[in-house]
């Protein structure tokens, strides 16, 4: 019997169960590979305080080995610190080899499974692992090598190693060729993933080329690398008995009271007194940890569990921040208005968590978007979640809210309707995922409630915008009514009784006066709605130093400037720039048209203000234009230098 029992390696297990880590279909395989590579790059950059600059390329290389799949090439290149050659095999070819496992930090990757799984998938479907190029600052030349997973021994095997001169000082480039299928749009689409990644990583500059499309460049909007907070000590209430004992043995020979104070957060002298009250013998306190029996540990543990302790610290959670999120949301389309909310960190299920929400209305989503459900972008630790939407805590929270009260159309218990994006980011060192492929967040009541609160806060801000719009439309309708029906009514009455021109004229004047009173009431309503919105914007400005409208207007001015800069003759128009220029010019025209629409509604006073604002913006734009010219010149010289090399 004993002869039949075999132990197998971790790699063997995952190689047979790749569906558990996101490789359940050709479609998911492409997205998961891309996601894992991007996550690693971003985590590495953040750890070394580098502003990330990613280059992504996805191409079709022919027919895949299995039915209904293509051979897809996925290239991700970063400007991170680079990997030492010894580490390349571990990172790309060994399961559960991670610098982040169990650290209690809000990093994207956690266990060290994802990228090795991608290599395995490449190996299984294309009989070739990943080609990695790496260079650290210390290395004179870059190293390119192929990494395969040795499935039997769970080790990365490096093959075909070569050195060469690379244009980068440091960074990693990984090239996968796998069986897969490419979907660009929709919930599981690559564009949706890139859009989401851009949104929650305002410090990221992203250049990508998908299939035959041109290069697209999305520049960063924040120059601050997020500081991932250091992990805090564990909270005793989040531990199980076994964990508690293992944790104790790490501390070695110290006494129990010292261990409790040093090894845990939120344990003070007073809490220890409380533990004693709850049944922990006083004598244990000075006892050496190594000399304590299992029974004694059990006693201590149950006393701790019975006593009340302050909630765990929330210092270990990371937020994108309202400012960065506001700037970032403008990068993903032509936004009409938006609202962002970053909640204060909270404890849900004894784990620190922070929820951030961004709601934006887009003008470039086409007419169909008006009748379709909103696009819900879900994030966990700044990683987009794209599959299994229905079971996710975020979806449940969004569906449970009555969006109609904020002015959005919605069928009962479903997502609201309209050209909106609702982005919800949950960040925590301990996110409870439903599965190893990290596609769905488990819906606990506390978490859903926290999500609902964030969504409602954002909804209220959005509601004020919509209310103002409704009031403006009401005023417009009333004004149109006066113009349309006034003369007809008077004409009709005069015709029936045979009244003369003079009476008609008098009646028309009287009618104008009457309806004018109604209009002024509508104007008052609009003014009140505007006042409320202004107050909201003022509060935002006080808190963040800017408001949403200001940001939208500024971004449109910036785009106008970038378009003009692109027209400069000295700028050598590379294919990349040509595309970004085109894209931006489209955006600008769309924005101009929205501006026109809003202008129609706005009062004369506001018009005056806008004129004044425009004047200041123009001067600011001129200044920016000059600086942009300088930047583009510098870029051109750099490129020429690279070409010479």
């Amino acid at each position, binding site marked *: 019997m004993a002869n039949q029992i075999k132990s197998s390696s971790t790699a063997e297990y995952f190689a047979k169960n790749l569906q558990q880590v996101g490789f359940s279909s050709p479609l998911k395989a492409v997205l998961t590979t891309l996601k894992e590579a991007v996550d690693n790059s971003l985590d590495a950059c953040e750890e070394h305080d580098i502003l990330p600059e990613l280059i992504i390329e996805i191409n079709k290389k022919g027919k895949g080995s299995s039915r209904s799949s293509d051979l897809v090439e996925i290239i991700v290149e970063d400007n991170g610190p680079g990997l030492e050659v010894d580490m390349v095999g571990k990172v790309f070819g060994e399961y559960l080899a991670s610098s982040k496992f169990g650290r209690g930090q809000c990093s994207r990757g956690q266990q060290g499974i994802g990228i090795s799984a991608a290599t395995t998938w490449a190996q299984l479907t294309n009989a070739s692992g990943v080609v990695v190029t790496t260079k650290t600052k210390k290395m004179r030349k870059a190293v390119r090598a192929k990494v395969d997973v040795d499935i039997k021994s769970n080790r990365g095997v490096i093959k075909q190693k070569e050195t060469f001169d690379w244009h980068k000082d440091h960074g990693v480039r990984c090239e996968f060729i796998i069986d897969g299928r490419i979907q660009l749009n929709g919930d599981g689409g690559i564009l949706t993933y890139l859009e989401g990644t851009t949104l929650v990583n305002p410090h990221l500059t992203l250049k990508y080329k998908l299939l035959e499309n041109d290069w697209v460049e999305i520049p960063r909007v924040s120059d601050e690398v997020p500081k991932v907070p250091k992990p805090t000590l564990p909270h005793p209430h989040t531990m199980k008995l076994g964990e508690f004992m293992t944790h104790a043995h790490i501390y070695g020979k110290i006494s129990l009271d010292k261990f409790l104070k040093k090894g845990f957060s939120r344990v003070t002298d007073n809490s220890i007194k409380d533990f004693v009250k709850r049944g922990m013998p006083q004598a244990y306190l000075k006892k050496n940890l190594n000399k304590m029996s299992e029974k004694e540990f059990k006693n201590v543990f149950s006393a701790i569990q019975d006593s009340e302790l302050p909630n765990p610290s929330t210092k270990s959670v990371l937020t994108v921040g309202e400012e960065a999120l506001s700037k970032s949301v403008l990068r993903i389309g032509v936004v009409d208005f938006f609202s962002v909310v970053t909640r204060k960190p909270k404890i849900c299920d004894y784990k620190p968590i922070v929820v951030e929400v961004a709601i934006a209305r887009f003008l470039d989503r086409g007419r169909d978007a008006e009748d379709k459900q909103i696009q819900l972008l879900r994030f966990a630790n700044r990683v987009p979640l794209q599959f299994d939407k229905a079971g996710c805590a975020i979806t449940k929270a969004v569906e449970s809210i009555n969006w109609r009260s904020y002015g959005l159309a919605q069928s009962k218990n479903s997502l609201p309707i309209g050209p909106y994006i609702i982005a919800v980011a949950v960040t925590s060192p301990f996110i409870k995922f439903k599965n190893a492929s990290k596609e769905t967040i488990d819906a606990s009541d506390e978490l859903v409630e926290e999500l609902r609160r964030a969504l409602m806060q954002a909804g209220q801000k959005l509601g004020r915008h919509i209310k103002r719009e409704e009031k403006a439309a009401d005023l417009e309708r*009333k004004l149109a009514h006066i113009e349309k029906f006034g003369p*007809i009514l008077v004409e*009709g009455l005069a015709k029936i009784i045979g009244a003369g021109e003079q009476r008609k004229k008098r009646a028309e004047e009287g009618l104008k006066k*009457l309806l004018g009173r109604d209009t002024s009431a509508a104007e008052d309503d609009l003014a009140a709605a505007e006042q409320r919105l202004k107050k909201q914007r003022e509060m935002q400005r006080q808190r963040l130093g800017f408001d949403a409208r200001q940001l939208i207007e500024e971004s449109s001015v910036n785009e106008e400037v970038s378009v003009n800069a692109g027209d400069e003759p000295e700028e050598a128009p590379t294919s990349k720039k040509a595309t970004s220029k085109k894209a931006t010019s489209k955006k600008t025209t769309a924005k101009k048209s929205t501006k026109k629409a809003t202008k129609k509604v706005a009062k004369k006073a506001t018009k005056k203000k806008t004129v004044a604002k425009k004047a200041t913006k123009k001067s600011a734009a001129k200044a920016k234009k000059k600086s942009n010219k300088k930047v583009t010149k510098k870029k051109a010289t750099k490129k020429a230098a690279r070409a010479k090399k």
Partner: protein
Amino acid sequence: MALMKVRKLKKDIPKEAKALCEQMLKDLERAKRPTLEAIKCSLDNSFYNPKVGYLTPGDKRVRTELNVSSVQKLSRTIFMLDILLENIYNGSVNTKRELYYMAKGLVKSTRGINLKPLDFDDQPESDAIIDFICDMLMVYREEVNCFANDRGGQTYSQCLSVTETLPDGSKTTVDLKNLGTAPFQPKNRPQALKLKATKKIEFCLVVESEGTANTLVSNGFTRRNNCIVMGAQGVPSNAVRAWCKTIQDQLKVPIFFFGDLDAYTLQNIYRTLKAGSAASLVRNSDFSAPEVRFLGVLPEDVKKYDLHCYTVSEKNASDARSLKKARDVLQNDPFFKDKKNKDVAKILNWLIKHKVRCEQQAFFSVNPKDPLMTEKIILDKIRSGSYV
């Protein structure tokens, strides 16, 4: 060309309309908000007067004051009033559908002033305006020359002649005996018809189903009995209601209604025929026949003749709605709440309690071999006083 009159109307409609417009224009000249008032035609403004036997309006009024929101409605009202006045002056008659198209045509053809904003998207919009004008002037639609294509009212008799005064003043008489199996069908203004009994008429039978009425007549019901048989064809139209009223007032014969035993028939068909409706409060006095009695099907008939019934289930959405409506009616409808109609209310209660319904045609199951069985039952019921 003078049209036949529905009633002796003391009002001069064009004069009233002009006075109303004059007042509106004056108000406008003074920058004062003109208002239009009409009787509120709804159940909460309906009162059942047992002395007269029909639903009468209360004091509630619908007041439309000119403001930005109502300017469209008022403009359309004046526009439609102008069309109706033109019709009155010309003596021409139109249906609501025709008036809807006439309005459309005028909007298209009028030069100078832009009438396009007045254009009606669909007929219900123009119908509502016509109804509002009638309620405002307290007149019937027929009095503003707007006739309906009324259905129902097919009448069969061997002892009735009808004299009609035509618009040119000439008179024409129709003896229903001479029509063979074809029915006489009154149109538009039955109140203007003069009825004469050629023999003593014993009763008038109004049958809910026009098909059943035709069956009875074909089997010789009117040949064997000195009576009038009329098909109501569902919820009685204005013509049927006015025709019943005319028979009741001019011939002074008992009128019996023979229909299904279900809440819908009692609430919507029988109640409307007998006491009018909340929607037509202004016209109930001339469009209801309070003497009509409910002959059946009665709950006692179900037992006596062992009639087949359908169950009304709370689980079925439409049945549940009708039961809810029946309970509602018992609580809120002044007709059913009045002591005078307690027997009808009792039937409704019986229906709610037993959750069944029985169709008038169920009498044909009593003795399928005898084609005259239904006739016999009806006559037996009339003779024995088995009605409410």
